[in-house]
């Protein structure tokens, strides 16, 4: 539309220039004709009233050209000519409307161009010429340009629209490819048109973006390598530490001091905890970077929810908590069965661990109507303050109220990673009257 507007303005300017140029030229021409005719008559008869009157009468008789004349004296009496005597004729140029020529078929008065020449005795000599041609030219130009402008605007509109569409289309292609790339496939690249037209701007853009993606892919790969390497490198000495402790334990005999043996057992248990934390960290990194190609199959989510409830119920009952399931049957989703199991189990575990004795926890699964299935785990514990809800998914994050209780703060990070991999949205909300409600919405 902008382009159409610009086009329109430039056409308008062009039109104005031509209009003025043409009409000025014709108008000058008419004025010049009048002057020449006046000069001719004056040269022939001088500026005495009687002389001019005679020359005018002679010219009219000969019907020379299509001029009209008027000669009047200082008092206003018409001495010769076929123009009506009008009070405001004056010296110099002016315009007036007069009836058209007798032979013409038009009823409307035409515009006449008039030149007044003062005479020696105070009289006035008027020559007039039909300036209708000027009017017609004006109309012609306006009409021509009217059509021209309309056509131009239309073409500009269409042309602009096509151009914009093409530009938008190229941008849309790039946008969609970018979305796919951000969705996880860091190896995809933007298409570069291969029509043989060497590098138009979009090709250059796509090319640059592709090179940026190459760099990003390398950096991400490098980062993944670094964190993997770190975890890997720390695991190895830690595993060795554990092995040494196990060896101490295995080689201990009956004379060993029981307190020492217990200390070694505790050390081994702590080493196990640390190694398990590393494993969880690496697992999260692996899922987030989509390092392995996860193969999705049809997974029975109902069975998983049932399993989690059954497996964790005794643990809940140890804390006199009630863990119940309201699970619709045969709800299937696409995903990785083992990861989904871990995700649901982590949330249940979280609920059990962070609610007090006697709390009640419900795992509910409903098939979706307009969307995918909804899995909610709700409890009537203390809940999570709304300010903290964004934080709990961060690695190692512990709420102040939870510090000191067992757990490494990675459970919900893993839930977030697995959910993201499956396109599942996770929402935390306040449960009524109090407590936490976690809603997982499957795609």
């Amino acid at each position, binding site marked *: 539309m902008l382009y159409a507007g610009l086009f329109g303005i430039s056409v308008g300017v062009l039109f104005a220039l031509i209009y003025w140029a043409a009409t000025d030229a014709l108008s000058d021409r008419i004025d010049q004709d009048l002057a020449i005719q006046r000069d001719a008559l004056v040269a022939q008869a001088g500026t005495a009233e009687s002389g001019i009157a005679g020359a005018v009468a002679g010219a009219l008789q000969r019907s020379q050209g299509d001029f009209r004349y008027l000669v009047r004296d200082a008092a206003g009496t018409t001495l010769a000519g076929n123009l009506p005597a009008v009070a405001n004729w004056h010296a110099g140029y002016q315009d007036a409307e007069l009836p058209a020529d007798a032979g013409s078929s038009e009823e409307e008065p035409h515009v006449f161009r008039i030149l007044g020449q003062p005479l020696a005795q105070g009289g006035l000599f008027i020559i007039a010429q039909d300036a209708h041609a000027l009017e017609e030219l004006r109309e012609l130009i306006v009409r021509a340009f009217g059509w021209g402008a309309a056509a131009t605007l239309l073409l500009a509109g269409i042309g602009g629209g096509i151009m914009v569409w093409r530009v938008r289309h190229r941008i849309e292609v790039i946008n969609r490819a970018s979305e796919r790339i951000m969705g996880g496939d860091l190896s995809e690249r933007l298409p570069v048109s291969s029509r043989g037209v060497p590098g138009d701007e979009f090709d250059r853009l796509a090319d640059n973006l592709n090179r940026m993606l190459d760099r990003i892919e390398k950096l991400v790969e490098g980062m993944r390598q670094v964190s993997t390497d770190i975890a890997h490198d720390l695991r190895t000495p830690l595993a060795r530490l554990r092995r040494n402790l196990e060896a101490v334990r295995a080689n201990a005999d009956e004379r060993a001091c029981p307190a020492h043996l217990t200390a070694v057992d505790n050390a081994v248990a702590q080493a196990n905890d640390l190694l398990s934390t590393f*494993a969880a960290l690496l697992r999260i990194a692996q899922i987030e970077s989509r390092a392995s*190609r*996860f*193969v999705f199959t049809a997974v029975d989510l109902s069975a998983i929810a049932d399993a989690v409830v059954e497996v964790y119920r005794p*643990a809940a009952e140890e804390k006199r908590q009630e863990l119940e399931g309201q699970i619709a049957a045969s709800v299937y989703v696409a995903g990785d069965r083992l990861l989904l*199991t871990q995700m649901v*189990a982590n949330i249940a*575990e979280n609920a059990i661990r962070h609610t007090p004795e006697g709390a009640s926890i419900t795992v509910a699964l409903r098939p979706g109507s307009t969307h995918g299935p909804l899995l909610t785990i709700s409890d009537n514990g203390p809940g999570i303050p709304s300010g903290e809800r964004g934080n709990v998914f961060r690695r190692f994050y512990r709420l102040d109220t939870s510090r000191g209780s*067992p757990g*490494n703060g990675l459970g919900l990070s893993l839930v977030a990673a697995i959910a993201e991999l499956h396109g599942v949205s996770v929402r935390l909300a306040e449960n009524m009257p109090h407590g936490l409600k976690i809603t997982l919405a499957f795609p």
Partner: protein
Amino acid sequence: MKILLVEDDEETADYVSDGLKREGHVIDRAANGRDGLFLAAAQPYDVMVVDRLLPGLDGLALVKIIRAADIKTPVLFLTAVDGVSDRVEGLEGGADDYLVKPFAFAELAARVNALARRPALTQPGSVRRVGDLEIDLTRRSCRHGDRKIELQPREFRLLEYLMRHPGQVVTRTMLLEHVWDFHFDPRTTVVETHISRLRGKLGSGENEQVIIETVRGAGYRLRDVPKMG
């Protein structure tokens, strides 16, 4: 037991073979796939412990070859990579179990023992018996001594798994994976809780003979403790 260990990392190989020797097993070692294949084809073993990533012929290819050669020796994969699809790929390729490094030796020993002895093959029919503890797989019923015991489905499966490996150490991880299909480490003591419930239902051991004992640092063991007199 005769065990073949195919592992290229010397530290791990030493660790494993020293530990297994201490348990009284005989160990043959190979440091790459081709040597491993050679040994596997040359003589029968009770269990093979194979690292998945080996120089040259890798562990997965090795197992596929011996399976194609109709060698039915149980295989335990060791791997530093814990991709879920790797696990599936390994098991479908012919391995029987999968252990991720780093592992505690007790875990490896328990799994090796569990693989080597398959008492299920020696008891036909749908009834399993250990001492005076008896379960019926089709009817999903259980008796201990002269007492009938009511078990929930997952408790039944837990007991069934323990009875498949009587007298052997079964680790927490094995129970999580094989009874509940949980392939991760829960931070809560779910296994302990279920085991103690099961213990309660099986009886205090005054009249009954079979108990589930806790093996410190390793796992659990179903034991027949015959009463005298």
